[in-house]
Every structure is written in C-alpha cells, then in structure tokens.
C-alpha cells in the first residue's frame, strides 16, 4: 500500500480540518515543528485504515479535539495492488464509513459501514480485533514498515502472517505454497478447538463436547447418588426387616408369656379371694368367741365390783355425819372473831379522823407564813425594777454613738479642717483698706470696715462681694487644684453633716458628751440589775412571784374552808400542832398493829371452817359417785344377761366350735395356693409391660420399614437404570466427539508445528545471503566494512560484529546503530514486498540519534531506495532533508 493523501476534520489540533498530500511515489518529507500534528496525522490515518468505524475505544476517543465532543473524520486515499481507493470514516458520533474505488476517472462507492471495514481488512491484509481498537499486531505489513514515533529502535517478532510473509520474502525461501496452505489448514483445524496457546477454545467443538460431557457426568453423578442412596436404603430396609422379624418373634413370645402370667395371676387371685373370704369367716368366728369371752369376764368383774362398792358406801355415810358436826363448831368460832374485829375497826377510824384534822391545821399555818414571806420579797423586787426602768428611759434619751462612728466623725472633721487650711493657703485673699468706712456684703456675711482699717477676706476660689458705693466685685480663680480641693471639701462636709444627722448630735463635742453620759448610765443599770437578781434568787421574775403568791393564797382559802375557820379565829401555834400530830400518829400506829393481829386470827378460824366444809362436801360427792357406779354396774349386768337369752356358757361353747372349723378351712385353702402366689401379680404386670414394650418396638420397626418401603418403591419406579443407560449412551457419543476433536486438533497442531519447524530450518540455510545484504547496507551507513550483521533463524537481528562469537548483541548497540540497522531491515523488507505491490515506509521523527556523517549516508540510501518505494519522513528538522524528496506541508482549513 502507498498513500496519496490524508485529510482530517475534527481531529486533535485540527478542529476545522487539515490535509496533506498528494504524496509522491518516492521520498516525501513532511517537516513541521513539534506538536504541529504530524504524529496525529499518522495515527488518524492508521485508525481510518485499520479500525472499525463504530469502534468507541479510548484510542478513537483520543482523536477528538480536546474539550470537544466533535466527531473525528479521516479520509485517506491509498493505492494497493487492486487499485486506487479512498476510505472516508467518521468516528464516535453517528459513525460512518465509505470505501470508494477510483474507476474511470471518478470515485465509485464500493462498500459502506461494516462491509467497508471488512473490505478494507481484505485489501490491507489486516485483522480487525473482536473488540476495542486495533493493535499493531492487527495492521499486517504496516506493523513492520511503518516506524511510528519512538519505534525506530524496535522490531516486532515475525509472528503473524505478514511477518512470516516478509520473513519468507527476505530470506528468499522457495516455500512450497501448497505446504503453506496445508499449514494454514492445519492451523485452522487446530483453532477450531483450541486457542493459539493451546487452551480449549470457548465455543469450539472440543469445548462443547467437554461441556456436554460435564453436563452428562453431573446428571450421571446425580443418578448414581440416587442409586447409592437407594442401595443404602435397601440395605437399611433389609436390616430393618431382619430386626422386625426378631421383634415380631419376640413380641409373640412375650405376649404368650404375658398370657400365661395373666392366667396364673387370675387363678391365684381367685384362690386369694377365697382365702380372704375364709379368713374373714375365721375372723368373724374369732370375734364372736372373743365377744362371748369378754362378756363372761366382764360379768364376773361387775359382780365383784358391786360387792366392794356396797362395803364402801356404808363407811362413807358414817364419815359424812362426823364432817357435818365439825363444820358447825367452826362456824360459831368465825362469828365470834368477826364481832371483835368490827369493834377494833371503829376505834381506829376515830383516831385517824383526829389525826387528819391536826394535819390540816398544821398545813394552813405553814402556808400562811410562806405567803407573808413572798409578799415582802415582791415588794423589794418591785422597787428595784422600777429603779432600773428609770435608768433605761434616761439612757434612751441620749443618742447612741458607737466608737467607730465617733472615730469616723473625728477623721472627717480633721479632714475638713485640713482642707480648709489648704484652701486658705491656696485660695483668694483680698485685703480691703477703704479710705472711708465701707460696708462689705459677702454671701455669708456682711461687715463694715473702718476707714484705713485693713481687712482680709478669704475665699478659696470665687469671691463675690458688694462694695457699697462702688459696686459688685466678682473674683474668680482658675486654679484646678483649688477646684478639686473644693470639691473634696464639699464632699467631706456633706459626709460629716450626714453622719451628724444620722447620730442626732450637733457636733463632735456633743457626740463626745453623749458617749460619756451613756457610759455612766450603763454602769448604774448594771448595779441595779445585780441587786434585782440577788433579790429574785431562783425566781424567774416578778410575775412568777406574783403568780405563786396567788396560788398559795387560793390554797389557804381552800384549807380555811375545810377547817371552817374565820379570819378572826386564832390558829394554835405551829409547835403545839406538831406535838399533837406526833401523839395521834403513835396511837394510830399501835391500833394498826392490833388490827392486823385480829385480822390474822379471824382468817385462821375462817380457813378452818372452809376446810371442814370441803371435807363434808367431798364425803358427800364420794358417796354419790359410789351410788352412781353401783347403779351403772347393776344395769350393765342386767343388759349382759339379757343379750344371752340361751345362756352365756352355751354361746361361748358354740363360738369355740365355729372358730376351729373356720381355721381348718383356711388352712386347706392356703395349701391350694402356689408357694410364690404373692409374686404372681407383679410377674403378670411385668410380663404385660414387656409384651407392650415389645409391641411398641415392633410397631416402631414396622413404621420405619413401611417408610423405607414407600421410599424404595418410589425410588424403584424412577427408572434409574434406564435413565443411566440413556445418559451413558449419550456420554459415549460425547466422549467420542471430545476425543475426536482433541485428537484432530492436536494432530493438526503437530503437523503445523512440524512444518514451521522445517520452514525455520530452511530459513537458517538462507540466512547468509540476507546477512550479506544487511551487512553491506549497514557498512554503507556506518562506513565500517569489517563488521557483519548476524540474524537468528527467525530473522531477528542477533547482533553486529567481526564474527558470530564476538558480536555485540543488538540490545547492546547504541540507539543510533539500532535505528540504522532497523532502517536497513525495513527498507530491505519493503523492497522485497514492493516487487508485487507498491509499499510505503514511514519514518516518524526517525534518525534522531544519527550523527551528521551517517545522516548523509542514510539520505543516500533513502534516495536510492525511493526509486522502488514510497517513503514518508516526518521530521521536525527540515534542514537535515534539504534538497531531497518532495517536501510536504500540512494545509489546515481556515
């Protein structure tokens, strides 16, 4: 392919558009400064030639002018073996693509849209990737012949078809085209099932077979799992069936045993019931016998008791008579004692009344004396209190000036005086000496001054005075100190007067006198109060004394009323009263002792009477009890005899006979009972419980077995074998398909690889001539005829050197040498390919590492090969290419 022109719109820096071309068939030099858009031009051309028009990859997005969403449009006119074509692509928004062919002097559209992309791919022998933007590997020959910016020192591996084509052409291998087709066929066969790296290809027959096999295996695993589960269930079923059989047998056996035990227990129960009946009969007979015996014994006892009672009754009647006699004697003694005691009590009461009368009189006399003492005390204390009252009233009249207040007054007075002295020393002094007697009016005073008399008038700051016959005279001082002193003086005076007003005194002297007077009064008050306190003693106050006096007078009045005394009646002396009280008290005490003795004697006599009465009552009650008992026994004997009309002896004998017979029957029945009959009910219960338990176990097993049976029947009807058969048969098919696909793919791959291997071997045989060509070209550029270029069997440049053992590896060469060597290789490849189709070699910003001497040799080489090739040099150093090739320029649309 060679290019004819490139036209851009909305691409990179070319927002409005740009065009370059027409290119010549030989050497084209496009020189422009850095960032002028040379490389953008080349990149856009590549996208137009090799990318899908509707690709939205970042590479395409980057074509858009920065900051816009304009749709990049690229138009490239190119020529290939098939003719001259024009591709016009608009990317991104509303993507469009039109491929036109130059036919008969006009452009004829041949394909558009996806078809145009496909047609381009065929024309350029490129590949469009499945998704995303195309990579260098997709560009066919362009990958090798176009050295984009920064790629001049790199050479791609010959891996793709284009590379292999160049490789073949370069080495001039006489390749068998049919074998190449075979190799391609083998590759296609391999790629049906595998990826190029040997992985199983998604969507390929091998993958499909694997997936089918996997699906079938999964289904088979499911069926086999079900089969295993069924087999396990079946085994469980068999085990359970055996268990059930055992439990069935056990159940039958235990039920039989339970039945036997039940029968035995029933028989034993019946025998036992009979035994209980016989026992009951025996007990009845025994009870009858016992009753008869007891009645007989009781009769004997009752009769003996009645005889005893008769004897005791006669004794008790004698005892009762004696007790009655003693009781009467005691009663007479008691009456005599009580008479004596009553007389003594009356005497003692009279003495007691007299003693009480004397005591009242004594109390009245003492109370009267106390009242008189209290009246005297009340009088004295009232006088003292009155004196104190007078002192306090006098004290109230004197202003109270506390020492700190007085001190404050002193300080203020001192301050005022001090301020006045200061003012006088600073203030105005007006000395008036009139020629004639004159009257002077001051705000505070008026005075007259005799003629020739000198009089000084002082004022702190201002002075207003009227001089009669002369007029008003106002003097003002401007001193600020005086102003502040005046202000302070005014405030001090106000404070001083305020304090005097508060204390109620006219001045400091009066305050001092008031303080002195209060002090003296307070001393007198304290003395009065001490006298009053001594008089009061423990009394709280005058009111308390008055109250107590009132109370005592009331009590005296009450006592006087009791004693029926009048004020005129004389009261015996207190000493007489006290002597008479003492005498009566002694008499009373003696009578008390005498009374106590009499009372004790009377009590003894009364107690004796009580004992005698009790004795008589006891004897009476015993007699009554004995009589009651005797009557009861008599009734009892009578009733007993009535119960046995046939005679107690006969009844006793019959009961004895019946008891012996019942005892014999019971012994016989006991002999019929089994020895362990008592254990039989328990055994019966145990056997029944065991049978019940066995039935429970059996039923459990039956239920479990029925469940398993149901499960197995359901599983058995699922046709697992048939399903497995169907799957296995499908699996064989799938396995066969898989094996076939794998074998076929692998066989094809081996054949393919063997052919490549031998192709490379053949290449190695013809490396020498190619190395010769490259060595010559490189020597022309470098001027060194002694070095050779060495290639490996894949035609990659191995290195440069005098011989193969001492060569400098390609990677170790300088950047300049690398780009020159690869330029030689590119030109050689392009020349070879140009034999069948015109070819374009692009050098974008190349040879930057080449020195000026070699640059000339390179230009010679380019000029020489430009006869066979189209070469496009993009450079920012136009001076290096002056005079050669066709200069091109970027024509931007205004």
């Amino acid at each position: 392919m060679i290019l004819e022109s490139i036209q851009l719109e909305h691409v990179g820096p070319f927002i409005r558009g740009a065009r370059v071309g027409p290119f010549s068939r030989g050497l084209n030099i496009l020189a422009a400064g850095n960032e002028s858009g040379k490389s953008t031009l080349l990149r856009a051309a590549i996208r137009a030639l090799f990318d899908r028009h509707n690709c939205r990859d970042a590479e395409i997005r980057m074509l858009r002018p920065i900051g816009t969403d304009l749709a990049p449009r690229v138009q490239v006119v190119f020529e290939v073996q098939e003719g001259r074509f024009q591709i016009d692509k608009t990317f991104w928004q509303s993507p469009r693509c039109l491929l036109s062919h130059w036919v008969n002097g006009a452009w004829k559209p041949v394909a558009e849209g996806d078809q145009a992309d496909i047609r381009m791919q065929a024309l350029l022998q490129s590949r469009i990737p499945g998704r995303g933007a195309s990579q260098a590997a997709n560009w066919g020959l362009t990958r090798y012949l176009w050295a984009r910016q920064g790629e001049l020192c790199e050479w791609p591996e010959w891996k793709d078809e284009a590379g292999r084509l160049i490789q073949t052409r370069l080495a001039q291998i006489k390749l068998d085209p049919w074998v190449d087709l075979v190799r391609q066929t083998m590759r296609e066969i391999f790629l049906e099932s595998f990826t190029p790296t040997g992985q199983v290809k998604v969507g390929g027959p091998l993958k499909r077979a694997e997936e089918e096999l996997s699906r079938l295996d999964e289904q088979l695993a499911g069926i086999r799992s079900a089969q295993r589960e069924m087999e396990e269930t079946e085994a469980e079923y068999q085990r359970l069936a055996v268990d059930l059989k055992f439990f069935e047998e056990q159940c039958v056996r235990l039920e039989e045993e339970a039945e036997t035990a039940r029968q035995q227990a029933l028989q034993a129960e019946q025998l036992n019931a009979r035994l209980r009946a016989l026992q009951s009969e025996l007990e009845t007979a025994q009870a009858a016998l016992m009753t008869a015996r007891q009645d007989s014994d009781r009769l004997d006892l009752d009769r003996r008791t009645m005889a005893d009672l008769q004897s005791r009754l006669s004794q008790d009647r004698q005892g009762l008579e004696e007790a009655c006699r003693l009781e009467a004697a005691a009663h007479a003694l008691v009456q005599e004692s009580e008479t004596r005691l009553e007389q003594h009590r009356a005497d003692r009461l009279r003495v007691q009344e007299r003693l009480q009368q004397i005591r009242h009189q004594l109390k009245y006399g003492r109370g009267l004396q106390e009242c008189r003492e209290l009246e005297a005390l009340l009088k004295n204390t009232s006088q003292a209190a009155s004196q104190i009252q007078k002192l306090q009233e006098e004290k109230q009249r004197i202003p109270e000036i506390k020492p700190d207040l007085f001190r404050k007054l002193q300080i203020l007075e001192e301050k005022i005086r001090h301020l006045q002295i200061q003012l006088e020393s600073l203030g105005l002094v007006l000395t008036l000496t009139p020629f004639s007697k004159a009257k002077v009016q001051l705000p505070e005073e008026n005075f007259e001054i005799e003629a020739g008399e000198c009089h000084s008038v002082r004022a702190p700051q201002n002075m207003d005075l009227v001089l009669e016959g002369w007029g008003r005279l106002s003097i003002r001082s401007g001193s600020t100190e005086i102003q502040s002193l005046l202000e302070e003086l005014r405030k001090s005076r106000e404070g001083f007067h305020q304090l005097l007003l508060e204390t109620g005194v006219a001045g400091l002297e009066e305050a001092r006198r008031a303080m002195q007077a209060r002090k003296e009064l307070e001393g007198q008050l304290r003395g009065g109060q001490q006298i009053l306190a001594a008089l009061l003693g423990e009394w709280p106050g005058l009111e308390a004394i008055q109250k107590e006096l009132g109370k005592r007078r009331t009590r005296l009045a009450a006592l006087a009323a009791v004693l029926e005394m009048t004020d005129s009646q004389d009261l015996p002396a207190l000493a007489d009263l006290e002597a008479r009280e003492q005498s009566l008290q002694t008499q009373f005490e003696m009578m008390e002792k005498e009374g106590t003795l009499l009372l004790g004697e009377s009590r003894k006599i009364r107690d004796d009477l009580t004992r005698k009465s009790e004795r008589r009552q006891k004897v009476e009650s015993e007699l009554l009890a004995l009589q009651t008992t005797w009557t009861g026994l008599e009734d009892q004997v009578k009733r007993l005899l009535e119960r046995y009309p046939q005679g107690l002896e006969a009844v006793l004998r019959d009961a004895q006979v019946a008891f012996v017979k019942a005892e014999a029957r019971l012994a016989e029945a006991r002999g019929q009972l089994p020895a362990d009959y008592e254990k039989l009910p328990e055994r019966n219960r145990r056997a029944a419980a065991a049978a019940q338990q066995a039935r429970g176990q059996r039923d459990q097993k039956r239920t479990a077995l029925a469940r398993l049976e149901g499960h197995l029947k359901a599983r058995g009807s699922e046709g697992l074998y048939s399903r497995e058969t169907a799957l296995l048969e499908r699996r064989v098919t799938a396995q066969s398909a898989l094996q076939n696909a794998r074998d076929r793919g692998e066989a094809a791959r081996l054949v393919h690889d063997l052919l490549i291997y031998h192709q490379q071997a053949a290449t190695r045989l013809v490396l020498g001539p190619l190395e010769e060509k490259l060595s010559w070209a490189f020597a022309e550029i470098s001027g060194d005829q002694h070095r050779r270029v060495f290639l490996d069997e894949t035609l990659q440049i191995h290195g440069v050197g005098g011989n193969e053992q001492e060569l400098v590896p390609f990677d170790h060469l300088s950047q300049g040498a690398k780009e020159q060597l690869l330029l030689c290789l590119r030109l050689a490849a392009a020349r070879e390919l140009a034999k069948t189709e015109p070819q374009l070699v692009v050098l974008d910003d190349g040879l930057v590492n080449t020195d000026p001497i070699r640059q000339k040799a390179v230009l010679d080489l380019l000029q020489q090969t430009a006869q066979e090739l189209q070469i496009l040099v993009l450079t920012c150093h136009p001076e290096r290419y002056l005079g050669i090739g066709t200069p091109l320029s970027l024509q931007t649309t205004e």
Partner: protein
Amino acid sequence: MKLIHSADWQLGARFEQFIPLSEQLRQARLATFQKALRLAQDEKADAFLIAGDLFEDNQVDDSMVKAVLSLFQEYSAVRIFIVPGNHDPQCGPNSVWNRDLFRECPSHVTIFREPSVIEHRGAYFLGAPLQQKVSTRDPSLKLAELASALASDKIRIGLTHGSLAIPGKHQAHDFPIDLHAATRAGLDYLAVGHWHNWQVYDEGRLVMPGTPEPDQFDQSESGYVADIRIDQRLAPPAMTRRPVASLHWHILTFNLLSAEDSKLRLAQQLNDWRNHAEHTVLRVVLEGCAHPEAIAAARSWIKQALGDFPLSQLVDCSAVAISEAELAQIRHEHPLAAQALLDLDVLESRITGAPLSPGPSETAIPINEAQRLAAESRIDLLNWKQTHFSQARQLLLQALQKAQQNGAPA
C-alpha cells in the same frame, strides 16, 4: 403338557458399543418377546415360562414395564409363569416386581415372588425366585424342598435362575445350580435361565435356552426358546429349539489391500441380506493400509452400501499408507510435507514402538524438539498412540491433496 421356555430377555439393556443403534436394539428385543408370546399362543402351549431376567435391571423405566404388561394383556390366552432372576431379583420394595404397575398384572400371569407352588392343568409349577443379586446357594434346593411336600402323581415343572455348576465355568457366588438338580428335586422339567447360550443337562430335564435375542456378534447358541413336551410324570421331556430372534448379527471385513475383492464380497453378502436388512445387525470393519484417498473412497463406498441397513456400523481400523512412488513424488514436489511425514513416522516409532520403514531418518525432528513444540501447545506427545499419528498423517495428506486439487495458490 406343552411348554415354551424362555429366559434372559433382559429388556431395557444397554448397548454402549452400538451407539446410536442402542434404542433400536432395545425395541427389537421387545418385538422378539412379542414374537415368542405369539408362538406360545399359536402352539397352544400350556404355559410360557420366563426363567429369570425378564428385565435387565430392577430400575428400568416404567415405559418398559408398561410395554411388557401390555403384551401380557394382548396374549391373555397364554398362561405365563415368571421367576425373578439376578438382574431383576425380588429383593425389596424397589424391585420392579413390586411396582404399582404390577398390581394390574393380568391373572394369567404368575410371578413367583416367593418360593411356592401353583397347580395348573394337572401339573405343579414350582418357582424358586432369586431374591438377591449374588449367592453361593443353589436356588434349586428350594424347589426340592417344595417338591418334597407334593403328591407324586402330577407332573412337576420347576423354574429358577442361576449358573450351571460346571467346574471351571461358573463362579461360586453366581447361584450355582447342580447339573442334576431336576432329578434331585424329583422334577420332570427344570426351566433355568442365566447364561446366554443354549444348555441342556440332566438327561434333558434341565434346560437353559439362552437369550432369545443375541446381544453380541459371537453368540451362536442364542436366539431360541425351548419348546418342551411332557406326556406324563417321569417321562423324558421332548425338546425342540424354536428360533425367535428378531435380529441377525454379522461382522464383515473390508480389507483395503484387496479393496476390489472386498467390495465384491461385501456387495454379494449385503445383497443376500437385503431382504431382512432391518433385522440385521451389521458391523463392517475397514482394515488394512491405503492412501488416504483410497481409504476415503472405501469408507464412502461402505457407507453407501450400508444405507439400507439401519442397524449397521462401520468400524474404521484402517491406517494411512502411501506408496514409495507417492512418497518420492511428495519428497520431490513438497519436501517440507515429506519431511513432516518422516517426522511423524520417526516419532511414532520412538513413542509407540511401531516399526519404522527403512530409509534415512536423520533429518527428522529430534524427539525432544518435537516434545518442546508439542508442550507449547499443551500436547502430551508421549501419550500419543498410533491412531494419533495416523490421524496426523491423514490430515496432512488430505490437506495437501485438497490444496493441490484447488489449484496453485495465489
């Protein structure tokens, strides 16, 4: 007393070696079963005996069971006695015989689920079913037990399933039946099933008729049911082999070395069988070495010839071979392809031990290089077999031939 004795129908069997013909083979077996029932009906047999393995497995699907029951209904005049065999033992609730479908089993069909005796038309039919898949116990002993309690004046027919206790031919756990089991149990006839080829012992009283429908190519003694006639108690039974097989199994070979002869022979044979082509299971083995073109031609011819035989298959055992002249021509015209062919020969010889044709082999790829190349593509070359190399050779030659046919490449 006339009996039709069959066994080992194994309905629902799997035929992995005949895929994709397996379903047809299963259906054919069912058709044969119908044929045998029809025979019993036509011959007015007193009983149709199935001595085990009516089904291939207890877990065959219901459609197969229904098909069998449908045939039972269709042939209601035929009294049928069945014993379960080792393939379909009466071993639990999941046994095919316990399916609900068998509740509707017609009354003229007796399935011996337990060892028991049925009296029918003046004879005793004693059944000893298999209740497990393997056992060392002789199942005919049960018959002896049952027979000991029977009146001796009536004909006794026994049915059971197991291998014949022939030293060296049977396995101990495969229900070994004594060869004189019929006489030992006092039976007039013992119908046995298990082995797939016809067997007669105990002076004609013990018969194993083999499978009525062969399932392999080498079963020459199968495809029959036994037609038995017993006139009276203790009289020797009269026996006839009655062929019932629906399918005929044949193997033919097509040798590439004598392709024309093979063609003639094969064509003649196929012509002979064409009338019952639908009932012929045919395997044609393509063998010998030939040029791929010849192989393809032979394969194509065989496929065409087998077009009328729906139950046929081609087993390709051929190997690609080219003549020295052809090889020389390839060497001359396509040296790279010839080199690859030589590589394949040498690698095959080194890896599989196949003989290597005489000639220079120095230029062949070293095996370690070939291994390296293969490993890059994840191919385990050392596990390759001759078929792989043959396929590789064939692909190469076919591709070359195709390329040449398409003309010179651009």
